[in-house]
């Protein structure tokens, strides 16, 4: 399984407006960045070069992992997508 191909095997109805928003400044000062390895959909990437955290909500599985592992409260918004948007499991 290649996580880069997540859109090939899990369905999403992507909302334009992200349901999770973070303050990337908080991430710069984080000593852990557990979100980058813990997120099962690899939505968080940290660039050492740019010293910048990038979050993309498109492939978010709405699992809740980042909400729990972030110990710096980097989120300015963490809610579930609007009704009808986000991940749509067919079988699992």
């Amino acid at each position, binding site marked *: *399984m290649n996580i880069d191909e997540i859109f090939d095997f899990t369905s999403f109805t992507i909302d334009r407006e992200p349901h999770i928003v973070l303050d990337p400044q908080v991430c710069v000062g984080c000593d852990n960045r557990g979100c980058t390895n813990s997120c099962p959909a690899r939505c968080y990437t940290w660039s050492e070069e740019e010293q910048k955290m990038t979050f993309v909500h498109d492939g978010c599985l709405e699992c*809740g*992992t980042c*909400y*729990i592992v972030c110990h710096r*409260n980097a989120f300015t918004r963490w*809610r579930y997508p609007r009704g*009808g948007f986000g991940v*749509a*499991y067919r079988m699992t």
Partner: protein
Amino acid sequence: MSKQYQAIVVGAGPAGSSAALTMARAGLDVALVERGTFPGEKNMFGGILHRMTSIEEVLPEFWHNAPLERHIAKKGTTFMTGEASFHVQHETVNFDRAPYNGYTVFRPRFDSWLADEAIKAGATLITRATVDDLVHKNGRIAGVSILGRTGQIEAPVVIAADGVLSFTAKKAGLRQPKFDAGQMAVGVKALIDMPREMIDDRFGLVRDQGFANEFVGCTGGVRGGGFLYTNYDSLSIGLVFHLGSLRTSGKTPYDLLNAFMEQPQVAKLVRGGRLQEYSAHVIPEGGYKMIPELVGNGILVAGDAAALCNATGVNLEGINLASHSGILAGRTVIEAHERNDFSAKTLRRYKERLDLSWVMQDLKGFRNAPGMLHIDRIYNEYPELVCSMMEHIYRIDGTPKTSIPKLILREVKEKVGLKNAISDALTAWRAL
């Protein structure tokens, strides 16, 4: 536009639909609010619907009508390392007849079915509705507002069955504002397509029999475990990690899942299959010690939202607890309507009911199990110990054999240390 109901249930999962069904059958006008386009769309789990005695009572012989996959007739546990595995298995004809001890199910289908039963009883299902906030009037809960919609849904009482992160319970001030990563786990799962006959032959199954296997030692040293369950024509295979441990490991769930599926003995089991769907969700694994406040004025909390999950390491139970708690919450709301009193004092009867039921008694009885699962040696050293010991016992190599008790002692000393082994055994004894 606002609409008035007698009760609102947030979340059409097993807890919410069970609550809505119970209340609707008693004649209450119930709104069952779900953020997915249909119930179950957002839901995944580790794979087993354990026996649901409370659903058997409200929907007798539900297994004839519910969209279930195989019933679990065979259960196994595998201790494994990168190269070796030691497997124990249990099977009995008692689990091969109704009422079955458990099933595999697909959540989008099962959760939809249970919500349909609530609708048949008269509940109103409102889909594509993410609850944004609780609405208060005169200092009391009076309903909920929906994200992106104007107006609100009104009722004098709300059941928060909105899952593990329960923002509804948080807004009511009933759950802790910040979770402890040490009490939470994340499960990741791959659904693997496989012809039914191949599954039957590979796992030794006939008719509708299913097989469920747990794995220890497959998580790259991260606290957690693996599972493999058979559906009719697919396998559910996945890993569960404790978040406190995963966070600091630097390892990723998908890389570990790939490594698990590539371990030689597991690779043989999934060979010939094709990945169909990948899913993930957080699980409240802290047990009794992490249960939030269960009631407030005009609100009750049920299911995962109330952390009613029993993860002892032997069975991972959730839906059965969720459903039972939903039914008890529903019954309490029916009583509250009879008295026209939705104060926390009246609703506290829900907590009393739960305390008297197997749900709380199990969680209380196994309250030390989550602590036991924090012994890191379980995930590396012990599986290695078991596999190495068995290899020494079975190995024939032209050298004199060590007696088995001596071998055990030597291996324990070498791999874990005698003191650790005794302390871990005591912890496990107390926990289980």
